C-alpha cells in the first residue's frame, strides 16, 4: 500500500476534524445490506513492487514479441522503429500525468502539442483541418460515416470491399442501432483495388463512399474519379488510411478529392501494443469543421495579447449540447497523439520520405523473393509496404505452422474473413524498415519447405 500516504495518526486526526467516530460513519448512505465488512473475498492481498514485476514479466515472456522473430504482420497495425526520444518525451510527468487542458493558462504545453498535431495531420492527409485525435482508426471510420449522414442528411453508406473487415464490423454493429444502411462487400483476391466499380452504386440516397488507401490487401488506386463521382451525386468520399507512412510515398487522399480522411495513426510513434491504445486521425475540409466530432484546439490570444491555445468549438460537444452533441466522445488519445507528433517532427518531410522509400523498396524486394517460391503468386503489383500472396493452399494453417518455427509470416485472409472460400489462400505480408533481408530469406525458405 505504498501509494497511500496517510498514516493512522493522520486518519485519526482527520476523522476528529470531520467529527466522525470511525471511517464507517462516512459510508452511512450505503444500504446496510450492500456494505462489505472486509476485503473482497477470493482476491490476493497487496504485493511488493518486486513481486508484481516478477509476475507480469513472467506473463510477458509467454508472448512472442515482434522483435524476437522474423516479423511480417500488418493488416491495420504496423511495426516501425520508434526513436528513443519519443518514449522519453511522453514519459515526462508534465505530459504523462496532466489533465485534459480545460484550464488553458496552465496547459499550454499540451494545447500547443494538440495544435501542432492537428496541423501535421491535416497536411499529411491532404485536408484543411484535423481534430486532436480519436480512439483509433476503426471508431474514427464510424464517426466519419455518422458525420457524412449529418452533412448530407442521407443514411446510406457504401463500404468498399477493401476496407479492413474489423472496421466494417464496427460500422455494422453501430448501424444496427442507428438505422444507417450500409452497402458492404468482400474483397476479391485480384490485382485491382475496388474503387471505380463503386461508382455505379452511388445514388441520391448515398451519404458517402468509404474506401481504404492502401486497402486491406495492400493495393493502391487513384481515388480521383471516385471523388468526382461522389461529388456529382452530392455524396462524400471518406478515405481510410491505416498505414500513414505510405503518404510519404504516395499522394494523399485529400489531394485526390476525399472530403473526410480518417486514419489509424499507430504506425507513427505509438507501437503495436497488442491492439491499443492507438490514435485515430480525423481530417476534413474547412467547410465541414463544425460537423467534425472530437476535440479541437484553436489559436487565440491571452489578456496580454500573447499567442496561446485553447480547446474550441465546444458547442458541438456533449458537455454543452448533451443529447444534441455531434458525438458522445469525451476524450482523445492525446498522449498517443504526442508520440505521433514527436516522431513526425523527428522525421520531418525528408525523413518521412526516406522512411517511406525504404519501406517500399524493402517490400518490393520481398514481394519478388516470395513470389519466386514455387506455387506462390503475388496478387497485386500496385502496393506500398504490404502486399498479398496467393498460396497454393489455405494460408491460415500455414501461418500457424510457420509460427511454430518462430516466424510471424503475415496475416491470413482466413483469419480476417473466416468462412469466405475464395479468400482462404490469401496471405497479407507487411515489410517495413524493421524487416531485414535475412528475415525475408528465412520466411521464403520456410515457406518453400512448408509448401513442398
Amino acid at each position, binding site marked *: 500500500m505504498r501509494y497511500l500516504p496517510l498514516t493512522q495518526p493522520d486518519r485519526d486526526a482527520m476523522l476528529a476534524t470531520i467529527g466522525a467516530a470511525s471511517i464507517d460513519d462516512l459510508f452511512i448512505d450505503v444500504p446496510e445490506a450492500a456494505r462489505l465488512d472486509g476485503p473482497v473475498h477470493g482476491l490476493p492481498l497487496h504485493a511488493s513492487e518486486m513481486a508484481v514485476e516478477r509476475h507480469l514479466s513472467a506473463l510477458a515472456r509467454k508472448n512472442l514479441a515482434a522483435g524476437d522473430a522474423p516479423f511480417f504482420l500488418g493488416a*491495420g497495425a504496423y511495426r516501425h522503429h520508434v526513436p528513443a526520444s519519443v518514449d522519453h518525451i511522453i514519459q515526462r510527468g508534465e505530459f504523462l500525468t496532466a489533465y485534459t487542458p480545460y484550464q488553458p493558462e496552465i496547459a499550454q504545453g499540451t494545447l500547443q502539442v494538440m495544435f501542432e498535431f492537428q496541423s501535421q495531420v491535416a497536411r499529411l492527409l491532404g485536408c484543411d483541418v484535423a481534430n486532436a485525435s480519436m480512439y483509433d482508426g476503426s471508431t474514427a471510420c464510424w464517426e466519419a460515416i455518422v458525420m457524412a449522414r449529418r452533412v448530407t442528411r442521407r443514411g446510406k453508406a457504401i463500404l468498399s470491399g477493401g476496407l479492413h473487415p474489423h472496421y466494417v464490423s464496427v460500422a455494422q454493429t453501430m448501424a444496427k442501432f442507428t438505422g444507417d444502411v450500409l452497402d458492404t462487400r468482400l474483397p476479391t483476391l485480384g490485382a485491382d483495388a475496388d474503387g471505380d466499380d463503386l461508382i455505379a452504386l452511388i445514388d441520391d440516397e448515398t451519404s458517402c463512399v468509404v474506401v481504404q488507401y492502401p486497402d486491406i490487401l495492400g493495393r493502391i488506386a487513384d481515388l480521383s474519379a471516385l471523388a468526382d463521382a461522389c461529388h456529382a451525386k452530392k455524396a462524400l468520399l471518406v478515405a481510410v488510411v491505416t498505414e500513414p507512412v505510405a503518404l510519404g510515398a504516395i499522394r494523399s487522399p485529400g489531394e485526390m478529392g476525399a472530403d473526410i480522411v480518417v486514419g489509424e495513426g499507430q504506425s507513427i510513434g505509438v507501437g503495436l501494443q497488442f491492439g491499443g491504445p492507438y490514435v485515430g486521425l480525423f481530417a476534413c475540409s474547412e467547410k465541414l469543421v463544425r460537423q467534425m466530432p472530437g476535440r479541437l484546439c484553436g489559436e487565440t490570444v491571452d489578456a496580454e495579447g500573447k499567442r496561446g491555445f485553447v480547446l474550441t468549438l465546444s458547442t458541438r460537444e456533449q458537455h454543452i449540447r448533451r443529447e444534441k452533441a455531434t458525438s458522445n466522445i469525451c476524450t482523445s488519445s492525446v498522449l498517443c497523439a504526442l508520440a505521433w507528433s514527436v516522431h513526425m517532427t523527428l522525421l520531418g518531410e525528408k525523413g518521412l520520405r526516406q522512411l517511406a522509400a525504404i519501406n517500399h523498396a524493402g517490400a518490393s524486394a520481398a514481394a519478388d523473393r516470395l513470389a519466386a517460391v514455387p506455387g506462390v503468386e503475388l496478387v497485386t503489383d500496385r502496393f506500398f509496404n504490404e502486399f498479398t500472396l496467393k498460396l497454393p493452399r489455405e494460408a491460415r494453417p500455414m501461418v500457424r505452422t510457420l509460427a511454430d518455427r518462430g516466424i510471424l509470416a503475415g496475416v491470413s485472409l482466413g483469419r480476417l474473413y473466416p468462412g469466405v472460400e475464395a479468400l482462404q489462400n490469401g496471405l497479407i505480408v507487411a515489410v517495413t524498415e524493421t524487416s531485414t533481408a535475412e528475415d525475408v530469406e528465412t520466411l521464403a525458405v520456410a515457406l518453400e519447405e512448408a509448401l513442398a
Partner: protein
Amino acid sequence: MTINQSGWRPTAPEQGESSGETFTGNRALMLDEPLIFEIGSSETTGVDFDFAPSPLPGEGQSQAQPSAPLPTLSPEGRGLSRLGNLARTAPIGLPGLSEPETVRHYTRLSRQNYAIDLGLFPLGSCTMKHNPRLNERMARLPGFADLHPLTPVDRCQGAFEVIHQLAHWLVTLTGMHSVAMSPKAGAHGELCGVLAIRAALDAKGEQTRKVMLVPESAHGTNPATAAFAGFSVEDIPATAAGRVDLEALKARLGPDVAGVMITNPNTCGLFEPDMREISEAVHAAGGYVYCDGANFNAIVGRVRPGDLGIDAMHINLHKTFSTPHGGGGPGSGPVVFSEALTPYAPLPFVEKQGDQFVLVEEETAGEHHASSFGRMTAFHGQMGMFTRALTYILSHGADGLRQVAEDAVLNANYILRSMEDVLDAPFAGSGPCMHEAIFSDKGLPEGFSTIDVAKGLIDEGFHPMTVYFPLVVHGAMLVEPTETESKATLDQFIGAFRSVATRAKNGAPALKGAPHFAPRRRLDETLAARKPVLAWKGAD
C-alpha cells in the same frame, strides 16, 4: 533565424527594460516556445536510416555502402515503379527538427503544463491520482508493447492472461457476472452498456422501449451516448438534497422506457441511498439500469455495484486504477454486466478453455455468444492500459483497494469540513460526501464568480477544481482530492483555497486578473470560437 521570426512577439529590449517584458518572450526559467512550423524545415531530420535494404541473395552486390544514395521516389528508382502514377510529387509541408532541437522543443512545452507529478489536482468527477512508474515499466515490456494484435493465438497467451486476470478482478470487485474489455474510453463504455440494453430489449421483442431516463446530475456524455445509440432522452430531476428524485423516476417508468442511466456515487459526490429501490422499480417496469462507474474509486472494496441491482457499469481505468490521464487520453472503459445482459456483450473477448486462453470472435462465437451485439473496435481494447491497471491492482491487493476508497472518502470529507465556514456547501447538511466535495459561488459579491476562485488557485500553485459542474449547483466548485494525497498537502491546499475564497468574498480586485503568474493570462476563448484557427497556415 531568430526566435521571433514570425513576428508574433514584437518586443524590443529598449521597450522591455522597464516594462518587465523581454526580447525573447522568455521569463527567466519560463521559456516561450515557437511552433515546430516556425523553427523546423523540410530539409531537417532527426533520424538516420540504414541505407537501402540489402539486395536479396542472387541479386548481386550489396549496395549498403555508406556512400550509397538513399532510395528516391523517382519512378526510375529501383523497386519504386510499383507506385505508378500515385507516387507523391508535391511537398507535404512537414517541418523537421534535429534530435536535440526536438527534445528541447517538447521539454520546453512540457514545462508549461500543470501535472499530477507537480502537485494536487483537486478535480471533481475526473479523478487525478498518483501514477506509479511501475505501471509504465510493465506496460513497456516487449512481450506486451511489441506484440501485434493478430499474432497467432497460441503465441500471445501471456497477453490474454493479463486481460483475463484483470477481467477477473473487475468482475469480483463489482460483484457482476461478466465484463467487456474492448471499450476504448469511459464514453465508449457507456455506449457499450446502452447497446447491450438495446440488444437485450430487441431480443425480447421490446423494440418500442425507446426512452432512456437520465438524471440531471449525470455526466454530459450519458445523454449524448443514449442519443447516439438511438434512444430518446428524458431528464429526471434531482432532489434538493442532490439525489435522484425517486418518486419522479417511478412516476415516469412505463412500457416505453428502456432504462435509466445513473451515476453512483453521483456527480454531487453523494451516494444514492435509494439505489436498490431504483433498480427494483426499473426492473419491475421492464427496463435496465446503467450505472456510470466513473466514481467507482469511492466505493471499490467496500461496495459491490452488483449488490445494488445494476445491469451494466463502465469503469474508467485511469480513475480507479491509476492509468495516466495523458493530457486527455487515452482512456479505457471496460464494462461489467449483470447475468441478464451478459449474452449481449460485445466481441471479441477472451475466454479460458482448459489451459488455453482463446479469443472469441465473430467466427468462434458459439451458441452461447450468438446474441452478442457485435464488435466495437478493431482489436482487443486498450492493452497498454490493462497492463497498467493490473499492475496497480496487484500492488494494492484486495486490502489496499478497500483502503483506497476509505482514504479517498476521508480526504474529501476533510476538505468539506475544513471549507464549509468560508464557502457555501449546498449538500453539507445532508451528511458525509463520498470521494468529492461540492461548493457553490453563493455568497460571493457582485462581479465575482467561481472562475475567479479557480484562476486565483492557479497563482497559488494548484490546478483549479472542476468549475460549473454539476449543473444542478449554481457556480459549482467540485473538489476531489483522491487517496494519494497526504494530510500535509491537503492542509496546504485548504489554506490556499480558504485564502482565495476569502479574497473573493472581500472583492479583491487582483483576483479578477488572475492568474498573474501562469505561462499565459486569461485566454480569449470567444475569439478562438468566432474565428477558428485550427491549423498552422503560415508560409512554407
